[in-house]
């Protein structure tokens, strides 16, 4: 059988038409409020992305079960960022222009959020992210005040590290950071906060990702004879560093972010190696009823405990905050909704934990939604300040000793 070029082009043309056609039929349905779920389902964010997306859908179901917001059903359109800014820009364009979404929720990496925020600003719609980069708080990224961050900034993590080091009485801290925005952001935040307290760092090292060994970086840090090493690291590199440090035999304490010093790290290197490591993470609002509702939904959707994905708790809250703001604004005008976001989530007002509860309470007066991920009080930049849990690894277990407020 022979194919001619013309036939082939014809086939491709027909395929394009087939793929393109259904989207034309997607005019905005009456009585719905459409939200774009833009999560890192593939790429380096994939351990979290699918759970984040599932929680956006689950939260929307909870809202719809309570009768929707402002008389409208919430409809979710999902896209994948591939954890890549370029793919995310095209996905966001599709959500905004083809699907006509009125808010974009769930961008994860800072690079993606910073690339998507100009588009949502242009369209005058809300963006809710879980990124750490400080640049997201300020203009030009947040020039219109339409961007909300549900995760602590890297700066805040750094401040929490400094509080802990002071409390634990460390005198000679050194830092080791994975060379990306988040890793360096953590240790830079620590340096700023630590120096503001009038102390000094003895050494700071930034290392490149994906190395088979970190021995030379480790030696450089240990040569400065620190009493504690503060890291901005991830699980894979921390595993190697901890092994190599243990072999070196030099006694030193470690303070790490929770995504690095996790139960998986204990499993990977053994409890002896990580004994006494201090793990710091923003604490989900674990005792709140909203956390219980989230945990139930997360177990149902993924079969895993809600604790395993802090970002999914954040996306769960995003839908709740947005839906409550829509209800409070009683319409779909974006400016009105945006004005209500802080009103429904910040203090002064009756504390509520679920959408149904909040919807009822809104009839009587002001509400303060307390989320599953944190108490969700947005500052003027649209940032939240969660509390930080300080966990000590003891006998292979992560035990929370105390909570740091900054």
């Amino acid at each position, binding site marked *: 059988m022979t194919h001619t070029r013309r036939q082939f082009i014809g086939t491709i043309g027909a395929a394009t038409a087939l793929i393109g056609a259904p989207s034309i039929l997607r005019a905005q349905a009456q009585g719905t409020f459409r939200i774009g779920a833009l999560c890192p*389902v*593939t790429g380096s964010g994939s351990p979290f992305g699918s759970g984040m*997306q599932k929680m956006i859908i689950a939260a929307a179901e909870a809202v719809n079960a309570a009768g929707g917001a402002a008389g409208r059903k919430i409809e979710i359109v999902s896209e994948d960022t591939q954890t890549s*800014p*370029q793919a995310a820009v095209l996905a966001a364009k599709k959500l905004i*222009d083809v699907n006509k979404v009125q808010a974009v929720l769930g961008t994860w990496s800072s690079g993606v959020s*910073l690339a998507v925020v*100009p588009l949502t600003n242009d369209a005058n719609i809300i963006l809710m992210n879980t990124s750490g980069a400080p640049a997201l708080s300020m203009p030009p990224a947040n020039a219109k005040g339409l961007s909300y961050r549900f995760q602590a900034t890297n700066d805040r993590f750094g401040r929490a590290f400094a509080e802990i080091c002071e409390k634990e009485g460390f005198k000679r801290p050194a830092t080791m950071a994975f060379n990306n925005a988040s890793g360096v*952001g953590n240790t830079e935040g620590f340096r700023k906060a630590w120096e503001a307290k009038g102390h000094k760092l003895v050494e700071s090292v930034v290392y490149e990702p994906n190395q088979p060994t970190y021995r030379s970086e480790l030696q450089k840090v240990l040569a400065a004879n620190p009493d504690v090493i503060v890291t901005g690291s991830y699980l894979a590199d921390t595993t190697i560093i901890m092994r190599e440090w243990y072999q070196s035999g030099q006694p030193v304490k470690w303070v790490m972010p929770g995504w690095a010093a996790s139960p998986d790290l204990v499993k990977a290197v053994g409890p002896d190696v990580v004994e006494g490591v201090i793990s710091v993470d923003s604490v989900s609002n674990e005792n709140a009823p909203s956390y219980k509702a989230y945990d139930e939904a997360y177990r149902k959707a993924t079969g895993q405990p809600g604790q395993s994905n802090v970002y999914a708790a954040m996306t769960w809250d995003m839908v709740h905050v947005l839906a409550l703001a829509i209800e409070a604004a009683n319409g779909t005008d974006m400016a009105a909704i945006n004005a209500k976001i802080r009103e429904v989530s910040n203090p002064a007002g009756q504390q509520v934990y679920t959408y149904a509860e909040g919807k009822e309470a809104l009839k009587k007066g002001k509400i303060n939604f307390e989320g599953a991920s944190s108490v969700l009080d947005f500052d003027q930049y649209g940032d939240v300040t969660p509390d930080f849990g300080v966990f000590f690894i003891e006998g292979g277990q992560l035990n929370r000793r105390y909570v740091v407020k900054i």
Partner: protein
Amino acid sequence: MEAYFIAIGIIALIYVILSLGLTLQYGLTGLINFGHVGFFAIGAYTSALLALKGVPLVFSFAAAAALAGLAAWPLGLVSLRLRDDYFAIVTLGFSEVVRIVITSERWLTNGVQGLPGIPRLYEGLGGSAAQLAVLVTVLAVTLVGAWIIRRIAGSPFGRLIEAIRDNEEAVQALGKDPARFKVQVLVVGAALAGIAGAFYAHYITYIVPDQFIPLVTFYVWMAIIMGGVGRVSGAIVGTAILMLFLEGSRFLRDIVPGVSEVDMASVRIGAVGLLLVLFIMYRPQGLMGDYTKR
């Protein structure tokens, strides 16, 4: 809807400019350049940094092309003795060096934090008019680029570089110095990649070293292989097919029932891979390839 197509169009045309450069380097001259993204990155950062300092975009684009071209020159000189696969390794290494330099020189490039808020083209027009103006501009530059490459291909210079590709010894025996021509070809292709980088930076408005990974180079390679190596039309058609696969697959959800929203993302990437494999199996010479040769 239109705005989405305009966005795809702009990204696709940026890739066309990249593949035009590679068509000249590999398709015509036979230089296996696996480091195309390095020049793309140099262009993007040059133009972005200048524009953030307030330099008019006309000059920042020119500087992007010039600097990317200049960067190719020493690379050409040091690696001309290297044949095919060795040259490929050197260029791949070069692009990684560029990325790591950008990552490390934080005083200049803001390192891994990236450069946010890069001014857009036609900012004054606002909204969809600006988007359309960008599309028209990129299209114009692409057409000029395509025309230049076609002129080069048809000129005595073009025949000479094709001769270098087919039999370098014969060219030398005829008293020509292949080295000089190879450097020229590298510089022109790199300058085109620099322009593409500038468009990219001013379109996405945020750049960070993670965006300039070798995957970009291989997207361009996929495009020219699918389109047909050594043809200007191949570069254009190949990029169109790649974009059709990558973006068209987003609409799979509408036609494939019974797959959950979350699984769809992975199914989509799988479908793109399958299409690419099938395409190369049934059209090994590319859509616009030269079927007279075997």
